[in-house]
């Protein structure tokens, strides 16, 4: 191999400044975080809540968080894996499920703060831009949307969750530019299209297309839907029932599983010096035994 000049010399490592841990993990955008959590100094200890929405491959996490030096405090949280409790078992990461999760979190927070009677929000989801009106008694609960590292394109599921929280009655400053159904040409939100997405209309349309053109693909793609007897026509009524169930009882349920007595280990435990020496001696013994056996075989 040709002589290659070593790129990462000792000098390089000596001068290397390691980024923050969560930046290394690629999980936190500090530029946004500074701007979201910075509270006016003349408001002293008043917490500044952010409405955090994160998507994993199979789950949606929505939380209301306030920042602290010791660590962020979570006021309330809602996950899309709780939606089976309200009657929705499939399609847990789509726009409609995001709407349900946002709605669940919003109602949960308002119930926690005993504001749920005052601020009903938008009971019938129409897809129009809805902002909470302050009543005479208390000002609405204010939070700031924190999307994390996702690309904010029009129609992203994050904004489905935002719409859910808005309709629940939270005061989140927003514009309708990024909701599903906003057209760049007319610069207006098409409430009909948005309502379609909130009730899973786009999923239903795809189901109909597949049923027509590729029935086998329909069987494989929507197998869980078929198993539960969900068809393109009853998707909207399903989501309506879920919304109603969420509004009826948004309280969080404690899981019955007892926390494991010993924390689960994900990495190997570090060996002590004695253990490492013992391991080395064992390795040498086996090596010698094997070498002895080989030399005997050769002889």
């Amino acid at each position, binding site marked *: 191999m040709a002589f290659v000049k070593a790129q990462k010399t000792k000098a390089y490592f000596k001068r290397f*400044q390691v980024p*923050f841990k969560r930046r290394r993990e690629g999980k936190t955008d500090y530029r946004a975080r*500074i701007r979201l959590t910075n*509270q006016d*100094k003349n408001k002293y200890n008043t917490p500044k809540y952010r409405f955090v929405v994160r998507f994993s491959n199979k789950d949606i996490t929505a939380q209301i968080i306030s920042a602290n*030096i010791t660590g962020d405090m979570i006021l309330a949280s809602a996950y899309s894996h709780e939606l089976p409790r309200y009657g929705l078992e499939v399609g847990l990461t789509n726009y409609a499920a995001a709407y349900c999760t946002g709605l669940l979190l919003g109602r949960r927070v308002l119930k926690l703060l005993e504001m749920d009677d005052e601020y009903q929000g938008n009971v019938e989801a129409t897809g129009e831009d809805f902002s909470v009106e302050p009543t005479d008694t208390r000002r609405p609960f204010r939070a700031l949307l924190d999307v994390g590292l996702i690309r904010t394109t029009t129609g992203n599921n994050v904004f489905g969750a935002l719409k859910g929280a808005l309709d629940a009655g939270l005061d989140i400053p927003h514009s309708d530019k990024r909701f599903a159904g906003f057209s760049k040409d007319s610069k207006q939100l098409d409430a009909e299209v948005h309502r379609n997405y909130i009730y899973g209309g786009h999923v239903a349309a795809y189901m109909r297309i597949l049923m027509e053109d590729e029935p086998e693909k329909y069987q494989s793609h929507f197998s869980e839907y078929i198993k539960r007897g969900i068809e393109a026509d009853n998707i909207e009524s399903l989501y309506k029932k879920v919304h109603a169930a969420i509004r009826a009882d948004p309280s969080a349920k404690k899981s019955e599983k007892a926390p494991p007595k010993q924390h689960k280990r994900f990495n190997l435990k570090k060996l002590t010096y004695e253990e490492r020496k013992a391991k080395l001696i064992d390795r040498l013994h086996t090596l010698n035994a094997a070498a002895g056996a080989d030399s005997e075989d050769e002889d």
Partner: protein
Amino acid sequence: MPAGHGLRSRTRDLFSRPFRKKGYIPLSTYLRTYKIGDYVDVKVNGAVHKGMPHKFYHGRTGRVWNITKRAIGVEVNKQVGNRIIRKRIHVRVEHVQPSRCTEEFKLRKIKNDQLKAEAKAKGEVISTKRQPEGPKPGFMVEGAMLETVTPIPYDVVNDLKGGY
């Protein structure tokens, strides 16, 4: 060309960020709360250009007299000529740290209150005044061996090093 006495003159090293601490500043600086009357240290953070105090105030400690949205008013002593003026400056929170100068005093206050309360309960009279360190107590020197050292006469033959 002469040196120039601009606002940030001679601050090349003073305002530079320390080795391997460049870039985003940790969030705790923004999350701290300050109240009027607190003591704070002014330490300039060269990464944030707004709300920087003049280089004179770098390293000074003062009391908070005003709090605004993003900045804090600090009252710092400055010697001007033959007198000390109490100067009021406004500094953004990134250039301010809570001072530990009164920490020892505050802890002592709490401890003294506690001791006084205990003594009152027991009915004894105690003094919580700090006493300066007195002279060290006397002690006997143990296990000392007496070794007499005398100079040895100079030996020309052996001690002359090098050329002879």
